């Protein structure tokens, strides 16, 4: 009987033993991509929750009552969707600075050992591949005793999606006053 104790566990990368350089570089980028997605979905949810009243999947806009006093003193009212008052812009990741030092732990080279047929003893290199293992060093100093990654993310506002722009435009062009 096999005495190997197999447990279901998550992979926990050990920084002390070194990771592949590709994994070290792509991990923060993947995290940034997820953050970007969260910002966009968070804003979409905000628009639905705060600017619309939902009832069985049918949404109607929450409106703000406005007063309009004309030059001759006539007082009228009109309604504007709450959505048009908020400076809603799509927030997205604009710039990412990822800074960390890498301490190379190991390198592997694969060299072909195919020999030439003309009795030469030297191995002929057909293809050489290298794999670099590394661990993260300090982001700020040369001191490798403390490891860390400094990630700086700047969000920017990108233009609104066509759907939201169309909704705002549609309401803006259909403002009708009433004397109530």
């Amino acid at each position: 009987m096999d005495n190997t104790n197999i447990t279901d566990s998550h992979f926990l990368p050990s920084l002390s033993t070194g990771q592949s350089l590709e994994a070290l570089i792509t991990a923060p980028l993947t995290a940034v991509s997820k953050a970007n997605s969260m910002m966009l979905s968070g804003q979409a949810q905000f628009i639905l929750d705060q600017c619309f009243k939902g009832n069985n999947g049918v949404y109607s806009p929450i409106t703000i009552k406005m007063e309009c006093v004309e030059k001759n003193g006539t007082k009228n009212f009109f309604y504007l969707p709450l959505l048009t008052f908020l400076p809603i812009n799509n927030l997205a990741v604009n710039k990412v600075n990822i800074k960390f030092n890498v301490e190379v732990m190991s390198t592997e080279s694969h060299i072909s050992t195919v020999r030439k047929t003309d009795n030469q003893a030297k191995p002929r290199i057909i293809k050489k591949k290298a794999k670099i293992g590394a661990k993260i060093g300090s982001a700020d100093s040369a001191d490798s005793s403390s490891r860390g990654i400094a990630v700086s993310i700047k969000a920017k506002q990108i233009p609104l999606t066509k759907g939201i722009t169309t909704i705002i435009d549609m309401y803006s062009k259909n403002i009708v006053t009433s004397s109530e």
Partner: protein
Amino acid sequence: MTRINTMPCPNCNQIITYDVYGLLTGLHFTCPGCAAVISISKESQPVLKNAIDKYEELEKKAGK
């Protein structure tokens, strides 16, 4: 703090520039075309304030 926004005038369709925070404090904004005076009704002020507060929270969370 200001948040400048625009809306078309309900009378003449001229673009009226207004400050959202100004509306909340009771400021009036005048249409440059027909001189109509625009303001928010008192009953809608808390609705707008609540939405703006929550939007600012969202912006802070996004690290803007």
